[in-house]
């Protein structure tokens, strides 16, 4: 053996750290482009707050995170390293392995439709494990993000009375180094119930409007025919959304102009809320002008105690 080596330069010291952490059993996936700068994770509490805030972003936000349902099973779909043999039998690894997994989740048909929108997407994925560690990747300037995976969704079929059926979420990593060399994890005290996605609350006109006074309801659509969950029927939401600060109205060609909301009143008669727009600004709008009315962003709603929903705007056309 030679006494000359560059191992220290091309390789590394190999001492082990006591109680070093390994990946646990995946509990849930959180996907999306939300990432965290060094300042975001300078403290554990800061990271936790920042992570949850990104789950409560509006759909229009580029850094929103989408938690998937709790994982009920996991099949290792890692593609093994590609090997070749030399003439005398030496086995050589030609290509390293490619980590991939298939997860079983429980999802009703309404949720499955939402999950299918992620099918065949290349998307950053954080893996939350049973030790409450969030596994992701880090780049050269210290930004912590989900590792990039190709994600596919296989919908659940009919039951067969033989074996349980689930929706299957598969992930295959784009760059194997993001699974090992670039891998980082954040220790949290989250539970899976902290990591739940939002529901779309679709706004609708619950009664005919009178000039600048609109009657608005909100419903969560389901897959059952002619069926929805009425947001107003929950007294917490009925009361919480009877606050003008929790609504926003925009107009203009690209809905970039704010339209003042003057009052909001609970409207139990019509199962919603009576939203009144500023009469002067409303009168000034031309006939046919469109108004986009919505709840404010889900993060603000959450702070106000209105949790778990994001408004889907209604477009109102001035007669």
């Amino acid at each position, binding site marked *: 053996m030679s006494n000359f080596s560059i191992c220290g330069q091309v390789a590394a010291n190999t001492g082990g750290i006591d109680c070093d952490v390994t990946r646990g059993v995946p509990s849930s996936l959180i996907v999306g482009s939300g990432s965290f700068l060094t300042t975001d994770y300078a403290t554990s509490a800061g990271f936790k707050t920042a992570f949850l805030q990104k789950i409560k972003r509006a759909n229009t936000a580029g850094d929103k995170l989408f938690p998937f349902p709790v994982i009920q099973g996991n099949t290792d779909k890692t593609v093994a390293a590609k090997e070749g043999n030399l003439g005398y039998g030496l086995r050589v690894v030609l290509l390293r392995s490619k980590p991939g997994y298939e997860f079983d989740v429980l999802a009703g048909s309404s949720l499955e439709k939402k999950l299918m929108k992620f099918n065949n997407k290349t998307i950053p994925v954080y893996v939350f494990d049973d030790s409450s560690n969030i596994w992701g990747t880090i780049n050269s300037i210290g930004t912590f993000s989900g590792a990039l995976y190709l994600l596919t969704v296989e919908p659940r079929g009919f039951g067969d009375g033989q074996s349980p059926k689930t929706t299957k979420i598969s992930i295959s990593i784009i760059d194997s180094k993001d699974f090992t060399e670039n891998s980082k994890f954040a220790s949290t005290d989250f539970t899976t119930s902290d990591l739940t996605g939002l529901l779309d609350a679709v706004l609708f006109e619950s009664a005919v409007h009178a000039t600048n*006074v609109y009657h608005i309801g909100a419903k969560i659509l389901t897959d059952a025919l002619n069926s929805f969950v009425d947001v107003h029927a929950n007294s917490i939401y009925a009361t919480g959304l*009877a606050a003008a*600060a929790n609504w926003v109205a925009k107009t203009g060609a690209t809905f970039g102009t704010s339209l003042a*909301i*003057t009052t*909001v*009143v*609970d*409207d139990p008669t019509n199962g919603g809320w009576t939203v*009144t727009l500023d009469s002067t600004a409303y009168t000034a709008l031309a006939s046919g002008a469109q108004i986009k009315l919505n709840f404010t962003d889900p993060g603000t709603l959450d702070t106000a105690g209105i949790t778990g929903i994001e408004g889907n705007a209604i477009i109102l056309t001035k007669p």
Partner: protein
Amino acid sequence: MQKDITIDGVSFMKDWAWSKTEQQFVDEFKGMDHIFPEATDKAGKLKEAYSIIQKEKPKPIEPAKPNLLEAVK
């Protein structure tokens, strides 16, 4: 600071109300049945609400007093 204030079930946007005179405020709502439907004196009730909202209006920041010592120099 909370952007709105609820008075007898009606949530008003404060900054909008602050930008109005009392008369403009009353005129905006006096014909609306869903605003204070129980009130027998609607205009009076609206004036009362206006007064409550105005009390929450932030006071303008006073300009800094000139430094007399500096002025003497």
